């Protein structure tokens, strides 16, 4: 069963909940954890990862302009991503679509292979696979697909995925084949709004989901969706996280609430 923990916006407690759930699941099930937040992979930082191994380098095709260029300007006009300036291609802005190569009549544009991301594996009592996008790169969707492919070899009962923020390409690649999405929300208007966008996206792709409220009591709010489970607000939680203490291992009401969430989730398996 594939479960993704997602949140729309960051900072609502997604990773602190997913790391705890992974640990709880690993006591009763065979599990592999996937960190698909390839832009800011944090799961491995919460644990002491043993034997970090590079599984794969992901490449992307980019383009560059060579000395054949006669400065006709055609490529500047065709590039829809403003990536060409002064007859140079900015690798950060280039999407690798190849339109410029097709339009150039002087063979002045050639493809170059470019490292765009990495996939790692490590053991934290259970296997963890995570991706890392080369900074400033695009193409997180592709990296996520590769993370998922690597995870298959474990044939684990549970694949627990820590998702990326946003509702764009990486989120869609993360959730499109999961069995269940846990949407984490906090009682603020912005988080509720993000969660609504997330739910609309999940509906769009027909993904089943449950909404989990984090930081209950921080603020008074009415939710426009059903809350499956609530975790109380505790002003000291950021301190636990800063000290790399898993919430489920802490001595707090938050820990109890996460264990209850775990018990309730087991019924879905």
């Amino acid at each position, binding site marked *: 069963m594939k479960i993704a923990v997602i949140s*729309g*916006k*960051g*900072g*609502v407690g997604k*990773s602190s909940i997913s790391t705890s759930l992974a640990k709880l699941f690993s006591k009763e099930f065979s599990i592999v954890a996937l960190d698909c937040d390839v*832009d*800011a992979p*944090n799961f491995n*930082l*919460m644990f002491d990862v043993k034997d970090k191994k590079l599984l794969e380098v992901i490449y992307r*095709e980019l383009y560059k302009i060579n000395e054949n260029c006669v400065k006709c300007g055609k490529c500047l006009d*065709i590039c*829809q*991503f*403003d990536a060409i300036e002064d007859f140079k291609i900015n690798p*950060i*802005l280039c*999407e*690798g*679509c*190849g*339109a410029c190569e*097709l*339009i150039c009549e002087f063979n002045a544009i050639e493809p170059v292979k470019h490292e765009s991301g990495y996939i790692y594996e490590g053991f934290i009592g259970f296997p963890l696979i995570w991706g890392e*996008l080369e*900074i*400033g*790169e*695009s193409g*997180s*969707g592709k990296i996520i697909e590769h993370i998922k492919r690597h995870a298959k070899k474990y044939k684990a009962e549970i694949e627990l995925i820590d998702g*990326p*923020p*946003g*509702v*764009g*390409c990486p989120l*869609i690649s993360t959730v499109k084949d999961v069995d269940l999405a846990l949407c984490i929300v906090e*009682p*603020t*208007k*912005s988080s509720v*709004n*993000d969660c609504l*966008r997330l739910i*609309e*996206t999940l509906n*769009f*792709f027909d993904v089943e989901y449950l909404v989990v409220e984090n930081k209950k009591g*921080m*603020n008074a709010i009415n939710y426009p969706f059903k809350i499956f489970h609530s975790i109380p607000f505790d*002003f000291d939680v*950021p*301190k636990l*996280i*800063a*000290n*790399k203490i898993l919430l489920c291992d802490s001595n707090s009401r938050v820990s109890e609430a996460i264990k209850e969430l775990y018990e309730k989730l087991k019924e879905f398996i």
Partner: protein
Amino acid sequence: MIVAVTGGKGGTGKSTLSANLFFYFIENYKTALIDCDVETPNLPYLTGSEDLSLAKEVFIEIPNIEEGKTYNYKNVCKEGALLKVGDKLIFIEDLCSGCKACGINSNITFRKKSIGKIYEKKFDNGYLIVGKSNLGERKTAKIVTETKKYALSKNCEINIVDTAAGTHCNVVRALINADKVLIVTEPTPFGMSDAKRIIKIVEKLNIPYKIVLNRYGISDLKVGYNFKIPYDRRIVECYCKGESFLKYNDLRGCIEEIANWIIWG
């Protein structure tokens, strides 16, 4: 002056800082606050301004494929959005990035497709400008570029660009052209690891930057920083209400220090 506020990780307090800087600056300067986190823009909530009006729609151009028509298209689409099977052309709109490569040396024509919208709210001495992608839209880079362009056309003295989380191309697009960057982080192993990633980009872009350590006091991790904002219940409360925390003198002082760097360097 364009100052971009970024941070790598989500939830470090980027938008909170942007909103408070905005309220600080509009007291004396014509200021634009620009939300470039186009997938999940939150500044409307943090500035108590949900009454935005539509300013502009953002379009890309996608192939206009008509049933029954024959196309002399060669398989050049790298997104897998356009496939030639026999003499039939299959177009999957969701995958199309609007690069127009398929139109080169072929008889494919294009039509406009909306990928997002730009909203605005006028304040007495400035604007909130918000880019927002349409639902299910994967490629949102152009919305970032257009939102910034639109905001800069207002000719404000100070422009505050709030970026998305992460270090991907949408963040870079938001950072490009900034005169100064504020990197917001927190004293956690995650905050620090993500801040390192974003610092690399900002250094590559050659933009002067300063580090704002938010939630100061939650750990004794050693983090280099230029400015700090304490972990304080009053900030959490103001955040929840969508208000600025400038009414508290000590907290206002934190913002003032940062604002002085933005203006005077």
